[in-house]
């Protein structure tokens, strides 16, 4: 008796209407219903952060949200960041600072750092590391990600654009 419900939400700025099983998580809805496979599942118990997306502009674990809960809300995923191919300063900073290796945790890192830079335009390294403590990376040792965040913060403040 997979109970279903129709929902309408905004995903990366576009309105989406679907009928979904009530128990379908938001992560699986994005990945398999909408085939937005940029959001990844690393643990499904709310710790690793690979599934982090922006819900009404604030980071959230999409593995701990039911898709039906986002009815009427807005969801932003990694696919919505670059506008048709032009990388954001944060994405460019990841390239310049080797902020990714396998890329599996990267979408979650980008979501977290997007909210960080919206909240604290001039974060210290310690603040960056505290915000990143909710996103686990096994490849980079966090070094490149922290450097990328600090680099992107400068660029967004117009001090020295990343990749200059």
């Amino acid at each position: 008796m997979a109970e279903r419900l129709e929902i309408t939400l905004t995903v990366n700025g576009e309105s989406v209407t679907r009928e979904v099983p009530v128990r379908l998580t938001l992560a699986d809805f994005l990945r398999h219903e909408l085939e937005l496979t940029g959001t990844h599942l690393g643990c499904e118990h709310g710790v690793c952060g690979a599934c982090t997306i922006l819900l009404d502009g604030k980071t959230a674990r999409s593995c701990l949200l039911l898709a039906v809960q986002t009815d009427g809300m807005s969801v932003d995923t990694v696919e919505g960041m670059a506008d048709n191919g032009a990388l954001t300063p944060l994405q460019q900073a990841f390239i310049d600072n080797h902020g990714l290796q396998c890329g599996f945790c990267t979408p979650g890192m980008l979501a977290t750092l997007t909210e960080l830079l919206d909240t604290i335009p001039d974060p210290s390294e310690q603040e960056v590391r505290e915000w990143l403590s909710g996103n686990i990376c096994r490849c980079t040792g966090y070094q490149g990600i922290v450097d990328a965040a600090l680099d992107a913060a400068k660029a967004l403040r117009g001090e020295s654009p990343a990749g200059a």
Partner: protein
Amino acid sequence: MKPPPFSYHRPESLPQTLDFLATLDDPKILAGGQSLMPMMNFRYVMPANIIDINRVAELSTVEETGGALRIGAMARQRDLELSDLVQRRCPLLHEALLNVGHVQTRNRGTIGGSLSHLDPAAEMPAVLHAHDATLHAASKRGTRDIAMADWSQGFMTPNLEPDEILTAITIPCWPEGHGYGFVEFARRHGDFAMAGAAVLLTLDAGGKIDRASVALTGVDNGPVRLPETEAALSGQTPSPDLFESAAAHASSVPGIEDVHATKEYRRKLAVVMTKRALGQALDRAQAGGA
């Protein structure tokens, strides 16, 4: 690790929520989901019915009434963390919130969810216990006020009947400029606390300790007050030695034993966390609660 099947209900009001609670079989409230959803994905918790109360607006208000903060159960932890009202009137709550999980979980996690889930290592119960807060529960049968001291009924078992929901919490505010300290020991930033201390204290005109309230988390099923410590402090001139001896009473807490640490170690931590939280609270009291 996919959630098991359940029926989904999305009340728009408290009365509608109470109806569901009274009529549905094996219902579970879904608030922030940061504790319930992991247990459902692990299939440890498999409720027949989910009542999603994220649209019950009246449960997320935060206001000051008669020298106390009345916080709706659905208030998000992150919103409370950023609230000026909480910072001014209940700074201990603000300080403790910085230790709750991570920003991404605090954006969704609620104060009511943390109290109803009642993980032995949760920070909110200790803060409320230190404030002698009152919890307000409601069911179709009526409402009930529960003192924080009676809230924990066992391992992750709050004082709620199956048809009741926690609707709000009233936290009596301490006087302007009071000292507050929250220190916990967690292996990594944002991890479960192995022991944590929440301290409130006020100084009299002569700089002596007028009143102190000390509550611990992570050392028993629910939060634990330390009356002996509080007694040892009141009327005394604060000093490292005083705090050392007063904090020593914390070693009498039961402690929790699991694969990660022994009871003895958690008791030792309880003493150290109490001492450090007292020091933090004293500094702030002497600086006028800055």
